[in-house]
């Protein structure tokens, strides 16, 4: 029994720093949806494509980190103030770079991402045409 109490005390001391940053109530729009369903849908779509800076493989829609809550608050209040989702994404990209966005834009560093599939498709097209052409002209049949 005493051992259990000791264990609990140890666990509590470990847990304390983790909860301390949640001592403050979350930002008003961290966990509260916007009243307008259409606007909230826009907010949700945007939040799913923004990276949580604290837990970097989650989106801010998925993360429970206090910082993700503060970012959701920014997204919702900015939409409410009439900003477009693109503007809000650009505002974050200006501050944290492309990494904060899960939806890649064509830029100096990302253009191969968009160019490579197109080039591959072109290559496939050329190979296919040559093969079919060869068959049609009664050449070697494989």
């Amino acid at each position, binding site marked *: 029994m005493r051992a259990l109490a000791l264990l609990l005390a140890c666990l509590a001391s470990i847990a304390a720093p983790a909860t301390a*940053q949640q*001592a*403050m109530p979350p930002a008003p729009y961290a966990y509260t949806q916007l009243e307008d369903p259409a606007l909230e849908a826009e907010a949700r779509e945007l939040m799913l494509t923004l990276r949580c*800076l*604290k837990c970097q493989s989650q989106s801010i829609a998925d993360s429970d980190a*206090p*910082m993700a809550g503060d970012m959701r608050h920014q997204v919702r209040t900015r939409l409410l103030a009439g900003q477009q989702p693109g503007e809000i994404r650009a505002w974050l990209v200006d501050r944290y770079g492309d990494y904060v966005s899960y939806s890649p834009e064509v830029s100096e560093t990302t253009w191969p991402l968009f160019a490579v599939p197109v080039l591959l498709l072109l290559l496939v097209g050329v190979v296919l045409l040559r093969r079919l052409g060869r068959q049609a002209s009664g050449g070697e049949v494989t």
Partner: protein
Amino acid sequence: MKRLLFFIPLALFLFLAGLFAFQLTQPKDEFVRSTMVGKPLPDFELDPAAPGLAGASREDFTTGQPKLLNIWASWCVPCVAEAPQLEALEAQGVDIIGVAIRDRPEDVARFLERYGNPYSRIGADEISEVQLEIGSSGVPETFVIDGEGVIRYQHIGDIRVDDVPRLLEELEKAS
């Protein structure tokens, strides 16, 4: 010729496998750096983080003298570790303005009482708005702001003893 062509996929596979193996052994930089370095500090105005302190705003950074902007919180453990280094910087005449993230006034007061107060002002950022405005992604972080209010340098994580000269150098460069 035909035979050689068969080796292309294998060569490609080996190249990719080698590339992945190399990248996997490289240390990963887990910090998201601010892309605001070189840009002016965005406008903000924060209330004092505890009674008896001065709040912080953008105007406090446009006095012609370079300053440090320290993002911290009383609940942040590495902030305790960097407290002596902030004291040392203050002792060298550096003006440090704090921004306390998601913090309660009583917690801020207790922290300052226990670990000292190297700050000339501390603003309360209850919803991380200033933190997000300057591209900071954690606590603690320290920014060098020049006398015109332009962000010059970002230090991520707690300030260790050997980071102090670097910060002093960056402050020197900014003046």
